[in-house]
């Protein structure tokens, strides 16, 4: 199997039929392990107390909110440069998942902020750039849903996704470039993670669960899209016969 075979709907469909149930199963197992570590087996933070447990749902959601947008940007660029329609459909299938992950990141971050910072929200560089990411996701989805000409919608939304990539380094380095209330990175750093292993373990289990769920949902949504193409082909055949 080479890279280009993935762009063929038939090959892709065969892969997706195996991937979807496996990824859903992995999600359940990984969330069960992750939740056990996050809620029971991990220690209380000496400053944050039990509120540190909110980090185990917040941080992986934030990582994947960024990574999914990166994935969408790369897929959209592949569509624009090499004219591979399946790449644009992958970006389209990933967008609502990324939007929900970003929503979880913003909402759980806000819930953590109230007891820790004393406020639900501040117009801090990290929080604001994450809000911009959420709006980028919504804009992308609305553009596709509201444009009648689907080919035009794919082209314009792909351009929007590629332009939006600029926001990713801004989010990542916002805590270093500006003075922010949000703490700097403690896991994805050049010098290695600075958090204790007992807190890194639940974080990595939960991140694996979020990743497995992303794969499951992406695969399931692509299967739905492929079924839709088949149904439209049959509809066209029926109209032609009549």
């Amino acid at each position, binding site marked *: 199997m080479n890279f280009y075979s993935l762009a063929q709907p038939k090959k892709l469909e065969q892969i997706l039929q195996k991937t979807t149930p496996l990824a859903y199963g992995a999600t359940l197992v990984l969330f069960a392990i992750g939740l056990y570590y996050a809620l029971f087996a991990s220690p209380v933070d000496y400053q944050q107390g039990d509120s540190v447990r909110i980090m185990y*749902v917040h941080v992986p959601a934030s990582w994947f909110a960024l990574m999914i947008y990166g994935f969408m940007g790369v897929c959209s660029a592949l569509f624009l440069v090499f004219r591979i329609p399946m790449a644009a459909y992958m970006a389209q299938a990933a967008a609502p998942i990324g939007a929900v992950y970003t929503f979880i990141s913003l909402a759980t971050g806000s*819930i953590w902020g*109230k007891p820790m910072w004393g406020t639900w929200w501040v117009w801090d560089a990290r929080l604001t750039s994450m809000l911009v990411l959420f709006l980028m996701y919504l804009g992308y989805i609305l553009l596709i849903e509201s444009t009648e000409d689907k080919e035009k919608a794919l082209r314009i939304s792909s351009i929007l996704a590629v332009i939006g990539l600029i926001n990713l380094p801004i989010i990542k380095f916002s805590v270093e470039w500006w003075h922010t209330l949000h703490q700097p990175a403690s896991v994805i750093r050049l010098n290695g993670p600075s958090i204790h292993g007992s807190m890194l373990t639940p974080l990595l289990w939960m991140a694996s669960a979020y990743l497995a769920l992303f794969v499951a949902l992406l695969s399931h949504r692509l299967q739905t899209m492929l079924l839709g193409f088949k149904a439209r082909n049959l509809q066209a055949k029926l109209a032609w016969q009549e």
Partner: protein
Amino acid sequence: MSHINFIATAYILAFVSLSALTLRTWLRYRLQMRELKLMEALVNKSDEA
């Protein structure tokens, strides 16, 4: 457990959001599958006629 209300709210909110997205994805798949089956039946009927 300190701040139990905040922790519970964060976890419930996250898992309700993820479950809603999963349910919506599954429902859309089922609906699309039903539409495809309907189309296949109509095409077969038309071919026979």
